[in-house]
């Protein structure tokens, strides 16, 4: 049975894994020893490259460093940073650190949820905008802080976020 399952996985990989993905992955693998101790760093590199950890990437990694996919998922799901689905085009992350919270970050997050009709951690149906929160970006002097895509900025209000969401929606599809 085990053997059959492995074959199935290989088939799937051959079917799904584009040449480009395989090439990018092998470049990442080359940086490391084939060692369990490098697992976290390799996963971080894969996410940096692809934006998330796809099933096929984890499958190829499993074959490469000879660790079961279960074990890889065990490590990956422990850390909040890892995503397992393609990220939204735009990501709004509201900082919920203490300084931001006492300065009204929860109201900003509420605004995002109401405006987009989704909850924290979810993505709009069209895959365009996701909202999330993080516990502190370390820019507490400018609280409340919001990260739009990768840009951290301070002094946010619900109104400012409302306008930003409108702009993101209008942006190119």
């Amino acid at each position, binding site marked *: 049975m085990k053997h059959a399952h492995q074959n199935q996985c290989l088939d799937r990989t051959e079917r799904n894994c584009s040449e480009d993905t395989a090439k990018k992955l092998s470049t990442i693998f080359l940086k490391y020893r084939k060692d369990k101790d490098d697992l976290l760093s390799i996963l971080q590199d894969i996410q940096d490259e692809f934006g998330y950890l796809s099933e096929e990437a984890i499958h190829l990694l499993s074959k490469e460093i000879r660790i079961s996919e279960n074990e890889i998922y065990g490590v990956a799901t422990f850390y*909040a940073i890892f995503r397992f689905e393609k990220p939204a085009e735009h990501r709004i992350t509201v900082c919920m650190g203490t*300084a931001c919270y006492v300065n009204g970050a929860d*109201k900003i997050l509420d605004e995002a949820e109401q405006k987009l009709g989704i909850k924290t951690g979810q993505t709009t149906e069209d895959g365009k905008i996701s909202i999330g929160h993080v516990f*502190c970006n370390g820019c507490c002097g400018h609280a409340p802080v919001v990260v739009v895509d990768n840009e951290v900025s301070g002094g946010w209000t619900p109104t400012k976020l409302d306008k930003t969401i409108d702009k993101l929606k209008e942006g190119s599809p």
Partner: protein
Amino acid sequence: MNEAAWSGAKETWKALKDSERPVIYLGVASCGRAAGALAVKGAIQSQLKSRSIDARIVDVGCIGPCFMEPLVYIQLPGGPPVVYANVTVAEASRLVDEVIDGGAHITERAIGVLADAPMWGLPRFFDHPMLAPQVRLVLRNCGLIDPTSIEHYLAMDGYLGLKNALAKTPEQVIEEVAASGLRGRGGAGFSTGMKWKLCRDAPGDVKYLICNADEGNPGTFVNRTLLEGDPHAVLEGMVIAAYAIGASLGFIYIRHEYPLVREYIHKATLDMRRIGLLGDNIMDSGFDFDIQIRTGALAFVCGEETALMASVMGHRGMPKPRPPFPATSGLWGKPTNINNTETMGTVPLVLRMGGASYAKYGIKGSSGTKTFSLGGKVRNTGCIEVPMGTPLRNIVFDIGGGVAKGKSFKAVQTGGPSGGCVPSSLIDTGVDYEKLTNLGAIMGSGGLIVMDEDTCMVDMARYFLSFTQDESCGKCVPCRIGTKRMLEILERITQGEGDVDDILRLEGLCETINKGSLCGLGQTAPNPILTTLRYFRNEYDAHIIEKRCPARTCKALMRFEILAEKCTGCDDCRGICAPGAISGEPGIPHAIDQSKCTKCGVCQDVCPPKNSAVARMDNVDREADQ
């Protein structure tokens, strides 16, 4: 690496200070960037280009006063740098035109000079009320040098501490650090000298060193400020520590949210290898050591040393019972020494000035200085450094400038989710490890969040529990299930559904979780509840018995109302109300439909201060004091 490296670096530094071209220093640490420093930099660059002006731009970290960012200091030939605060993109071209091209400072716009004495009617920048009371030892270079330049660090006598250390035996280095009285700046306050000795004395040929730069406490950014302002200080400390304990490999575990720190540390280690400060035979001493960078992946528990080690080894970051302690069995079962970033950053100073001289700062038992990140409802936000023993009052009211927006001070929260809230009645307490612990708060890694009358202390406890519950790794039952139950109780209370037995349930859970949890995360998780119960019991009672939130913050127990006698019908609030809960015609007092109101508070924010017509009310119709 020889004497010429320092003399060459000092010449480079002097050439910068004596530059015949104007020099523009830009504070581009993460906090500066969050305030728009990169946009200001871009505007300055394009204006310089369009006017064909030859000027030099030097990126620096943050001096500390984040509320003044973006900070730009301009040095005209022959003069000291002049500091301009809160520079906007629109102003950038004016600075280029009038100051750099015009050759004269705009003294009414500048806030100080970086010089030994006042000049042109401008005060010394370091005489600013936020900066004057500080004693900057570990942060001494932050915001003044280019963090990506090893030459700048060498010009500030960088790596002289390492040179002194390598001239001593490892045992003598440990004695020097022990004599300084330096205690761990990560919060636990364990003697650094003692920690090193334990690892030094542990049997084993291979030993490891870890610098914990996983600054995960929400509301804390002291390590970021140091690493983005003066990364070599921390790395020098690591090399000294490695020499003292006999480690051949070190890891710096950097928080995921700090990409700039990773960039700077990577650059710094390359420079160190280039001039022989890392690798084989460091400074021709025969000592070999190298540093690898590891990145965190958003797991607060990895600040705990055994969990951190698991993460460095690529595993799930779950803590383990101690003993064995890392000093005897750490990374891959080998003796391992773990120090906090600020501790590492302090070590070079101790070796440079001598342990006894360092011990003169601070107070008996808690020597030296401590950095704090000052945030929340305080006027002057930023990263500060004060001698141990400095009263909280001086920090909040002198350095911090008091509570923002004219509100009244309620409490200051120290130590993040593991710490507690110190009420105004105890504000004269000095900051040292023991005094803060006695109050039920802790020193922690340096977060100080100021809270005003609008902060509900029950809600703060709920907030911190939501954090610890989210971050609990789930390994031990008291923490995994206990924090969940405590959070549920606090949620009930803040929603007005608490009952009188909830306090007893909370107290019982606090004791069980404190005593029964495996690691520091669980053991300290009850602290925010215990201190708020101790100092703000009246707020719990008000929520439970009167179903009232005295701060009018808990949404279920408050509402917004427009006071008809104050409302002029300016209509500012009606258009901006997202759920459309406000009705009324221009010129006629408006009203809020409570069934539609989401209590976002935007109407109160936009109501002109001269009207102040939007009031927060509790459920017995008492208006919040404005």
